[in-house]
Every structure is written in structure tokens, then in C-alpha cells.
């Protein structure tokens, strides 16, 4: 039921993911951020087993930071993607991480790029990618409406179309989505699409404690 998708536009990459943390039939929370910032110009959007997802993406994030400390320059997106694939491939035959990853980044020399990394460590550079049950709807929508060099407005319109499709056609559709963008100026959150807000719990004073 987890949906992660992304596409490359004109000098930027947009990634969107659902924000439900689910365990069997229970929804723990609806504002879980599954798109982690690797460094100033990279995002890793992950879907899969929650424990593996958090542990693996944090491991990648710390190693990317370590490279920057050791070498004084940040990793390129391609290098980060290949490192991630290497870690997944090494673990594959021992203790596989059940995490599917879309790695989005922007480099000064090569521009925006999006990498599709399967949980079996299949790496491929793509213009548009999606994981999860939502991918069955998103990929065809993106095939129809995507063209290279889309502007941010056009891309967001397409992302919203995808979100709307997922929410209307997927049986246990996630209510909320987060959209993040990476471009020359850096990696940042763009918007949330919320149809259900987490209600705050009662404060201790109100309970008379």
C-alpha cells in the first residue's frame, strides 16, 4: 500500500511518497516522512519494511556524510546510487533489506537525475519511476503525460493527477502525501497533500494530572 514515485523535470527532480506508517490493519501515523535528505542536493525516497527502510536509509545517509568529511567534496548522485546498490547487493544473499529506493539528486555538472533501485539491488537511471501498488496507476499516467523538460508547475500537476488516481482507485489508499523537490538550489520539501490530519492528543493539564 506504500506508494513512492518521482520524475525528472527541467533542472529539477520531484519525488512524492505517501506518509502512512502501517502495521497490518493498524495505521500508526499518517505523517511519516519517507523521503530522507542524504545531503544538500539529494533525496532518498524509500518504501518497504519500516525497520529496514529507516535503518538502511540512515546508514546510507551517514556514509554519504562520511565521504564528504573524508574527501572534502560531496558524492555525485550516480556515485551515491551505485554505493546504495552495492550495499543492497552485498546484503542480498545474507540478510536482505526489503527496501525499494528512488534516489533523486542534482549535480552541477550533470543536472538532475533519478535512480530506480529495487530491493534486489537492480539499479537503473530513469526519467520517471514508481514503487508499490500505486506504481500500477502512476506509471501509466506518467507515460501518458510526461515529456522531458517539464516545468515545476507541469510536474506538480502530473504528481497531483497521480495522487488523485491512487486515492480514488487503490483499495487501501493512503490519505496523505508529501512532495519534495531537488534542484540547483538544493533539496527541500515542496508541499504536503493531506486529506486526514493527525489530531493532537489531549494535554496532561486537561486530564487534571
Amino acid at each position, binding site marked *: 500500500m506504500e506508494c513512492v514515485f518521482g520524475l525528472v523535470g527541467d533542472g529539477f527532480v520531484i519525488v512524492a511518497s505517501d506518509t502512512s506508517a502501517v502495521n497490518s490493519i493498524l495505521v500508526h501515523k499518517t505523517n511519516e516522512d519517507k523521503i530522507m535528505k542524504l545531503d544538500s542536493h539529494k533525496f532518498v525516497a524509500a518504501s518497504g519494511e519500516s525497520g529496514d527502510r529507516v535503518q538502511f536509509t540512515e546508514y546510507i545517509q551517514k556514509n554519504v556524510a562520511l565521504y564528504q568529511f573524508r574527501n572534502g567534496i560531496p558524492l555525485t548522485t550516480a556515485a551515491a546510487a551505485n554505493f546504495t546498490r552495492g550495499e543492497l547487493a552485498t546484503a542480498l*544473499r545474507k540478510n536482505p533489506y526489503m527496501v525499494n529506493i528512488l534516489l533523486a539528486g542534482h549535480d552541477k555538472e550533470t543536472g538532475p537525475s533519478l535512480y530506480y533501485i529495487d530491493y534486489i539491488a537492480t539499479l*537503473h537511471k530513469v526519467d520517471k519511476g514508481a514503487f508499490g501498488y500505486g506504481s500500477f496507476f502512476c506509471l501509466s499516467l506518467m507515460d501518458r503525460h510526461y515529456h522531458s523538460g517539464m516545468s515545476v508547475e507541469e510536474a506538480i500537476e502530473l504528481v497531483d493527477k497521480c495522487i488523485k488516481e491512487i486515492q480514488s482507485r487503490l483499495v487501501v489508499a493512503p490519505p496523505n502525501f508529501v512532495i519534495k523537490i531537488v534542484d540547483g538550489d538544493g533539496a527541500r520539501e515542496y508541499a504536503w497533500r493531506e486529506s486526514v490530519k493527525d489530531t493532537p492528543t489531549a494535554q496532561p493539564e486537561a486530564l487534571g494530572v
Partner: protein
Amino acid sequence: MVGKNCFAIASDRRLGVNLQTVATDFQRIFKIHDKLFVGLSGLGSDAQTLYQRLVFRHKLYQLREERDMKPETFASLVSAILYEKRFGPYFCQPVIAGLGNDDKPFICTMDFIGAKELAKDFVVAGSASESLYGACEALFKPDMEPDELSEVVSQALLASVDRDCLSGWGGHIYIVTPDEVREKILKGRMD
């Protein structure tokens, strides 16, 4: 497929997960050196891992021996690497094609645990291998020139992948002669 002092190696371009097509520009044929190509069908991840290991071994060989590997030697290397993992294999069927001594074409394929199969005419691998055997057998002629070889390989590839739902989305062909390498992208039935 072997021609007259040349060979052709071709693959489809689909990257899929069971019924879903993820990409239509997946690279399956890799250059080891100017006269040696290897095509890796099967699990995408293992194809990438195996390719990285093979390039590593070949670069080491180049440093030690100060020359490129012969195709026959390379085939033995691939076979050994695959059999190393006999009880936890790489799910990959390689197709190796190269020009050996005196630019004599060499082709071979192997199963996923490294059982070599040499041939004088053509070798095939992948989910559409049965179709490919039929198409190649019907269209093959010995001693074809590069242009005719390229035509025959294109027709055989497209005809076979059209009968296999897991293959397709175009074709990628390398025609290798002693002087040059020609790369062709084919547009077939994009389904």
C-alpha cells in the same frame, strides 16, 4: 551470431518486474574490450553484479599481462566465477562473443552455473531462448558479411521477442568487425 570475420550480439531493452515494465532502455550487453562483448540475461541485479566483477577481473588481467583477454580465456573465467557460486548462484545466463586470434569470431553461452556451450553459428539465452533458437536456425547462413549479418540478427531478435511477453521494447545490436564496432538501436513492437 557469427559472420565472416565478424560477429553480432543483440539483446532486447526491457527491464521488468514480472508483469510490470519498469524501463525500456536497460543495458544488457557490456563491452569488456574492443573485441569482446558479454550479454547478461536473467536477474538484473545479478547481471550488474557479475558485470562489475568481470570488468574488475579483466582490468587486473590487463595490468598483469599487459594485453586484453582472449575470448576463450574470458569464457573460462566467467564459467569459473559462476561455478564458484554453485550452491547460491548468480541467476544470469551470459552470452559471450569476441574476436580471438587472427580475428576469428568466438561465441559461447552458458547456464547459470557456468556450463559452457560453444557453437560455430549462433548462441542464445534468456526467456525467449526457445523462440530465438528457432528464428536463428531458420535465418542463419554461414559467412555473412556485416550488413547482412546485422539484418539477419535484427529480424531474428524482433521475431522472437514478439512471441515472449517478458521480452521486447526494442532491440540493441552490436556488429563487431576487426576495424570497428557498430551499434544499432531497433524499434520493434513497443509492447
